């Protein structure tokens, strides 16, 4: 119960941050998962699940009026499920992580559905605002904005609270009663989740123009790792600085070069 309240408050705050106030991107899965994991006492799990969800949903953009899946609530819930399953049962962590990610993704879609209805409801508040504006009542407009903030908080709170409460009772029993083939299938599929994330990244960044750069950097890193035995972190920093240099000195290769 206490845990459900903590997770609910976290979900509400992340929902506020991502959909209403500020948008500093604390609500991105990478950060939200880490903070949830830290509060529940297992940063490592939080980081890994957050990173996986971040990669899978990296190209879901809130452009214009479109609503992306609620990745922050999905990561909060995924991390919560994983940590409570890890603490209460002696199954390999691969199975538990894959199971929690697979369960958290539909909840992100539930969050999106709730968001849609919340935004439809907000139309009523907007009508009230125009009524108060024609009376010159500015305090009422402030109060209505406050009410919208509270509603947005409660959207995240309710979803996370109920999901965590139910999860504690049901999820474990389901996971234990699954046949061992499905468990092994989950364990095997966990190895492929980063591959999905990388495929999403390639799909996003490697437009036709840059495919030669992509292959070039792959071969460069592979050869340096295999032959010269560089450490991975140093190699990553080298590639990053080369990339930045190339991107901002590219006008040497172009005719109409101008500085941004």
């Amino acid at each position, binding site marked *: 119960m206490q845990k459900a309240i903590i997770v609910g408050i976290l979900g509400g705050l992340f929902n506020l941050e991502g959909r209403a106030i500020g948008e500093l*991107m604390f609500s991105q899965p990478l950060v939200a998962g880490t903070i949830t994991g830290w509060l529940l006492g297992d940063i490592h799990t939080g980081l890994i699940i957050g990173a996986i969800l971040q990669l899978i949903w990296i190209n879901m*953009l809130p452009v214009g009026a479109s609503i992306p899946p609620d990745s922050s609530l999905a990561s909060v819930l995924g991390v919560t499920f994983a940590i409570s399953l890890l603490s209460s049962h002696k199954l390999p962590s691969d199975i538990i992580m894959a199971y929690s990610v*697979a369960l958290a993704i539909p909840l992100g879609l539930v969050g999106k559905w709730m968001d849609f209805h919340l935004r439809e409801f907000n139309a009523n508040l907007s009508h009230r605002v125009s009524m108060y504006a024609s009376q010159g009542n500015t305090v009422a407009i402030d109060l209505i904005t406050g009410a919208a903030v509270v509603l947005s908080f409660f959207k995240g709170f309710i979803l996370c609270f109920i999901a965590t409460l139910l999860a504690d009772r049901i999820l474990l029993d389901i996971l234990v009663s699954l046949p061992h*083939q499905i468990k092994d299938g989950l364990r095997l599929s966990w190895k492929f989740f980063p*591959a999905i994330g990388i495929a999403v990244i390639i799909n996003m960044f490697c437009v036709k123009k840059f495919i030669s750069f992509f292959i070039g950097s792959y071969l460069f890193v592979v050869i340096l790792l295999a032959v010269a035995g560089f450490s991975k972190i140093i190699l990553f920093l080298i590639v990053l600085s080369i990339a930045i240099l190339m991107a901002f000195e590219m006008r040497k290769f172009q005719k109409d070069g101008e500085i941004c």
Partner: protein
Amino acid sequence: MKLSRFDLIVTMYRSLFVETVWNFERMQSVGFLYAIIPAIRKLYPNKIKRISALKRHLKPFSTHPYMTGIILGVILKKEEEIACGTEENTKVIDDIKSNMMGPLAALGDSFFWSAWRPLIALLGTTITMLSVKNQCSIILGPVVFLIIYNIPHFYLRCIGFIKAYNSGLGIISTIRNLNIQKLVERLYLIGAIMAGCVIALLFSWDKFKLLDIEFIRNIFFFSVILLLTVALKFQITATKLLYIIIIICTISVYFGF
């Protein structure tokens, strides 16, 4: 009547709430009104004038949330001029808003949503992958993500707002001179180079030997990634791919693979 520095800071703080009452009819218009209320309260002590000023801001308004600061700055300058009486035509406020919100939204969407955030998220996850085993640097990835991401964000929110307030409509030519399309392309180039680097780091050879077990495993993963990329090109979403992979794995385990 002039706005004090305190009013500007309050408006800047309130501009964080611009997406709060987001609705499908008038989008962020309530959020914009909420941000501008302190200025209107101060500029128009007369109730009738205040009501007409409030009503000016009820029309549909939608832009990129980080760009509201710039529009707010320009509008505050104009409202000030109207309150002083140097500007007679109140319709100009509406024109400025409707002419600025579209181009700025496109600019913010193409820079922040489709290039900057994915690129920095990729950077953060890569650092996480590299540093997750090390106890001291475990939260380096999220921290780097938050800090680097928010530098241009806060630049636009705060300095953009102040600059727009000081230079009024002159900010438009400054924005036009930014070549965002080229900048986005450069970020995509960095992203492409980093993507190649990430694959090589994740599925890497420690020792280079042909037809070694590790070699076959890496080739297998590489071809799986290529297959998944092709699937994504055919509009199968990543979440669907995830469930398809779980099902395929379960079936292959069932047949004793």
